[in-house]
């Protein structure tokens, strides 16, 4: 119980440390308010993006040098052959990296190919880089978190599974906490939505996606600032798996309801078929956007309010912002679990539709 209480202030403290260093820097230089607002905005946008090194925080030293605290991650590129190098070569995006005669530069958290060591990214009128982009399979900050969550989940649940065999079919330790959640997913999400007959086939996916999204969302709330689920690539991947499972487990009844809706007149059947077909794609698309948008919005709002603390720079405004940020952080904790729940429930619902057997007319 004591440990739980003391964790929250520490988390908040760490969250603030990131910004305190900026506040100091800004305070001494006495920048105008607009610059600070622009800085906060830029910081938030930077935070929402992936990065090639694992930055914990950065600051500007007294000599005016930009310092980054963190460690580099491996960059893996496919550009006429596999190229693997450390992200430290980019010097946090400030320099051009030279690998095997090719030159790469980071621009808006993406790697572009440049012609020489002193070349710059060429932008068009919409501020889009026109340089060539190599195929990028780097272990970015987000990928490293996915690997971390992979490890945590495997460790947690394989240990839980072992405790059952060691303890005569009863969970032990962490398993006691996790078992009700696993059973909740089984009894409240999978069983009612998919049905008693088929739910067992989908349990592995539903449980994994539930815990994965939940844990990843929780990591997004820690001050190390990794937001896996606010990348459209991640949510697209998850939604795509749901879509593929739904499509491939669809039975005769499911396809009949899509292409030749029973119980409606023939002209309606013809009108309904493309709508229903589109619906099968819209459903997972909505899943993808819902998770992405909820987490991104949460992060933007939370960070904006934290940023307001430094914009106000007076006792009343800053403390009110702090209070608001605190309340919002708690709300985000709820959202983290809620989005995992919604994603799992809707996936289960779609699987349920695909395997539904009884011939009901709607």
């Amino acid at each position, binding site marked *: 119980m004591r440990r739980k209480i003391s964790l929250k202030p520490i988390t908040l403290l760490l969250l603030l440390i990131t910004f305190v260093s900026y506040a100091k820097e800004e305070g001494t230089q006495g920048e105008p308010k607009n610059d600070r607002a622009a800085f906060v905005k830029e910081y938030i946008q930077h935070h929402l993006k992936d990065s090639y090194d694992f930055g914990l925080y950065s600051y500007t030293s007294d000599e005016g040098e930009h310092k980054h605290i963190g460690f580099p991650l491996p960059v893996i590129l496919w550009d006429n052959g596999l190229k693997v190098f450390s992200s430290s070569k980019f010097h946090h995006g400030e320099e051009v990296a030279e690998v095997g005669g090719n030159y790469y530069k980071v621009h808006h958290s993406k790697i572009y190919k440049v012609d020489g060591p002193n070349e710059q990214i060429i932008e068009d009128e919409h501020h889009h880089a026109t340089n060539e982009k190599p195929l*990028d*399979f780097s272990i970015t900050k987000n990928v490293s978190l996915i690997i971390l969550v992979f490890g945590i*989940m495997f460790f947690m649940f394989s240990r839980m599974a072992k405790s059952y065999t060691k303890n005569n079919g009863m969970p032990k330790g962490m398993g006691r906490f996790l078992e009700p959640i696993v059973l909740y997913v089984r009894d409240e999400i999978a069983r009612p939505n998919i049905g008693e007959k088929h739910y067992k086939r989908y349990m*592995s996916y539903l449980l994994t996606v539930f815990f994965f999204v939940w844990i990843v969302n929780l990591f997004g709330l820690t001050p190390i600032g990794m937001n896996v689920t606010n990348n459209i690539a991640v949510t697209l991947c998850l939604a795509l798996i749901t879509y593929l499972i739904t499509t491939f487990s669809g039975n005769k009844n499911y396809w009949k309801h899509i292409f030749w809706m029973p119980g409606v007149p023939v002209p309606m059947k013809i009108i309904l078929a493309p709508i229903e077909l589109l619906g099968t794609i819209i459903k997972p698309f909505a899943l993808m956007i819902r998770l992405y948008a909820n987490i991104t919005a949460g992060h933007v709002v939370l960070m904006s309010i934290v940023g307001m603390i430094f914009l106000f720079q007076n006792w009343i405004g800053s403390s009110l912002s702090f209070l608001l940020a605190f309340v919002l952080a708690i709300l985000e904790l709820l959202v983290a679990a809620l989005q995992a729940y919604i994603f799992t429930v809707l996936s289960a619902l779609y699987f349920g539709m695909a395997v539904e057997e009884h011939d009901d007319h709607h």
Partner: protein
Amino acid sequence: MGKLFEDFSLGLFFWQAVLFLALVFLLRKFAWKPILDSVNDREEGIKNALDSAEKAKLEMQNLQADNEKLLKEARAEREAMLKDAREMKNKMIEDAKAEASESASKLVAQAQASIESEKKAAIAELKSQVANLSVEIAEKVVRTELSNKDKQLQLVETMLAEKSLK
């Protein structure tokens, strides 16, 4: 929408797909299957235990009912046996009584009969003895009496006197 496409990172998609699918399959083998199986086993076990407890309860009730029935039967049997025994006892007593009285009366009758016959025999013997004695006495008397002439005459006279007196 344009921003979404711009933000899309193929590398991240690739790693997410690979790692997530690997996680699903690894966890299915090492976690979800054993966990769900043991939970299932446990639930089955609890269900079976409850069922068998219910069954045992029913059996117990049946057994109790049987016991009650047996007890009742046994009681009835005992009652019947007691009644029989009592009846038999009474009958035996009565029979014995009847027999006893019968044999007693028979004995009495026999005794009476033998007494009668004994009496008759005794009387008959007595009569014959008395007759013999009388004859002997009479002989002796006659012999002595008739040895003396006077006495004979006296006797005749006495006897005659007696006859006349009568």
